[in-house]
């Protein structure tokens, strides 16, 4: 059984809807340009901005221009409305879920008002728009779906593909009737400066897979797809395409770099093919993650060569058009793949000129006219999406569904708790040295220390060295490191910011660090849906175990509060969040 796609919506640097995006891709027009909307001092950095102001987007959504709404939310709501309109479904009486991938969330608002919030009580409630989960809630309301179940996945740059994977799994497991899945991410000073501190931004147009490539250009946007179970379709709705295979795997190598042989990417692509019941030669186009950094493109090329050998289908990265839209890139590229499939069209690898021996040769659209691919229509497309911490996922989109049922026949497994560990006091952090060396501990923030201790303690008690999957829940993520980076940026300007702090600011930092430590290349997921985060994580763990996809799963709920965040809560008359709370549970089939 496959998952059918019955609608899609997209907004990014090369167009405010699917038609415009396709036109730009066909005409070879990039959306990367000088900064226009983002108020950064780094004017030298080209970016792929959505060519609309916040006010214009608010008008499109029928909102008051003066309302404070995150750009992440605005773009996401526009893409969801397009997708729903396209699908034209009757949602009455249906169980609807919105699964959103984002990491930046309401950071643009926090950046703008943080300094004032510190003094002004009236502006303080804006902090509640900061976390990813609240962005998704607001987006659901603006998109006209206030009653939908909402969930936020935050695995850095692979978030949106993981949202689509989660939505598909929920449909297969009959937890929901209709899923709207994808991702949204606005440019923020925070991550622009973070990537800049990591020295992986190119000051010129990015050139994925090119010998002279020197980094990525950041972009922004949102894209969502409407998913249903194939057998739930009524006659008047013919599916556009199918989600035929997917896999979420972890490189478990380094916090920001990819391994030389692309192990995580290799595993994700291979297992997606296996699930789709396809051979490498059945893939007619690969939309690569291809960021334009020397490291990603070499590692991804190595992985593609491992999977496809000598017969590599046309490959291109479309980030030369859109910029790297980070958490949204997975769904933006999924929609680009759907457009490619429907139009039998392979997008170019914009910016590429010179062959790099260590890289694949990307597809050149201008040679397409005379190539053999012209006459053979595209049947199946592979879409790669990788993130910091080695959160590597792959998706296969196909014109035809998987012929044989692949799900629902396995025996339902029961789940039990094997071991549990809790850290809820900073004094317990001293236990860290039982597990890691001083050298390894030196970069860890409080929350990272707590999560490491509770995870390793629980695993030890369970007698499990490497779990099959790692799932993290966190309402606010890495508050301490994020706050330090943000304050330094707001007080001292956009120069000389710490790469280490940024590297440890994404929500998936915890899950991926624990994967590296336990050498776990399996499923790796991070949920950030406010107080519901743990429920989503446990639900996912049970689903993995019940459907036989994993035998042992490590689930962690980790959150921290900085003194400033506690002060904010006190001033708003809210209950004080705990300084540190980390609870890890090892689940296993009974």
């Amino acid at each position, binding site marked *: 059984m496959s998952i059918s796609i019955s609608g899609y919506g997209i907004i990014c640097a090369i167009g405010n809807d699917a038609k415009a995006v396709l036109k730009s891709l066909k005409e070879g027009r990039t959306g990367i340009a000088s900064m226009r909307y983002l108020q950064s001092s780094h004017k030298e950095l080209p970016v792929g901005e959505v060519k609309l102001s916040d006010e214009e987007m608010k008008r499109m959504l029928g909102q008051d221009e003066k309302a404070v709404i995150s750009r992440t939310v605005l773009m996401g709501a526009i893409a969801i409305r397009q997708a729903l309109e396209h699908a034209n479904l009757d949602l009455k009486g249906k169980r609807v879920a919105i699964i959103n991938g984002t990491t930046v969330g309401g950071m643009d608002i926090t950046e703008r008002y943080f300094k004032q919030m510190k003094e002004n009580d009236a502006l303080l409630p804006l902090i509640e728009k900061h976390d990813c989960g609240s962005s998704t809630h607001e987006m659901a309301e603006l998109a006209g779906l206030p009653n939908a179940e909402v969930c936020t996945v935050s695995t850095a740059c692979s978030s949106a593909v993981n949202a689509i994977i989660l939505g598909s799994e929920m449909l297969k497991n009959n937890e929901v009737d209709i899923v709207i899945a994808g991702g949204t991410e606005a440019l923020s000073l925070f991550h622009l400066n973070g990537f800049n*501190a*990591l*020295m992986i931004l190119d000051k010129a147009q990015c050139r994925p897979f090119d010998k002279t490539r020197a980094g990525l250009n950041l972009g922004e946007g949102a894209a969502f797809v409407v998913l249903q179970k194939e057998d739930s379709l009524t006659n008047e709705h013919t599916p556009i395409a199918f989600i035929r295979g997917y896999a979420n795997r972890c490189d478990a190598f380094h*916090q*920001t*770099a990819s391994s030389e042989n692309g192990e995580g990417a290799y595993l994700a692509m291979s297992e997606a093919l296996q699930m789709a019941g396809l051979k490498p030669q059945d893939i007619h186009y690969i939309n690569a993650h291809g960021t334009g950094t020397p490291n990603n493109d070499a590692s991804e090329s190595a992985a593609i060569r491992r999977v496809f050998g000598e017969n590599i289908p046309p490959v291109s990265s479309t980030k030369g058009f859109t910029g790297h839209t980070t958490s949204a890139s997975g769904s933006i590229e999924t929609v680009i793949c759907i457009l490619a499939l429907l139009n039998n069209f392979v997008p170019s690898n914009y910016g590429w000129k010179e062959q790099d021996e260590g890289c694949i040769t990307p597809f050149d659209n201008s040679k397409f006219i005379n190539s053999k691919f012209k006459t053979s229509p595209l049947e199946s497309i592979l879409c790669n999406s990788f993130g910091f911490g080695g959160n590597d996922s792959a998706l296969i989109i196909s014109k035809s569904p998987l012929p044989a049922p692949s799900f629902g026949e396995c025996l339902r497994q029961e789940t039990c708790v094997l071991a549990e560990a809790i850290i809820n006091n900073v004094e317990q952090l001293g236990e860290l040295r039982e597990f890691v060396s*001083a*050298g390894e501990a*030196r*970069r860890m923030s409080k929350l990272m220390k707590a999560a490491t201790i509770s995870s390793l303690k629980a695993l030890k008690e369970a007698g499990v060295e490497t779990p099959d999957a790692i799932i993290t829940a966190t309402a606010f993520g890495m508050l301490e490191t994020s706050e330090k980076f943000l304050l330094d940026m707001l007080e001292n300007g956009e*120069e*000389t*910011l*710490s*790469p*280490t702090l940024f*590297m440890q600011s994404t929500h998936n930092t915890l899950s991926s660090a624990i994967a590296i430590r336990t050498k776990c290349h399996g499923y790796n997921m991070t949920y950030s849906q406010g107080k519901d985060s743990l429920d989503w994580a446990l639900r996912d763990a049970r689903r993995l175990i019940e459907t036989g996809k994993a035998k042992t799963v490590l689930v962690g709920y980790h959150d921290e509060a900085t003194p400033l965040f506690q002060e904010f809560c006190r001033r708003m008359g809210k209950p004080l969040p705990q300084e540190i709370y980390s609870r890890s549970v090892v689940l296993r089939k009974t």
Partner: protein
Amino acid sequence: MEQLINDLKLQIKEALNLEELSLEEFDENAPLFGEEGIGLDSIDVLEIIVLLEKNYGIRLANPKDGRAIFQSVKTIAEYVQANRKK
């Protein structure tokens, strides 16, 4: 030069959270990278680049250049002395 070496040791210790490394143990000739010496990695290169810009006004555009300059605290000191803007 001695003063500069000492300043750099303190700045590196702080920026990289090398809490357990005492100034006495911190040999300016010891290799900063690899298992033989202090054991720093590519992220530390980026932190040292930030530190040099902040404290000495030195801008390194390519992290690859850093690796050659950052062999030891001594080589960093020599580079800073020759290139410092503040």
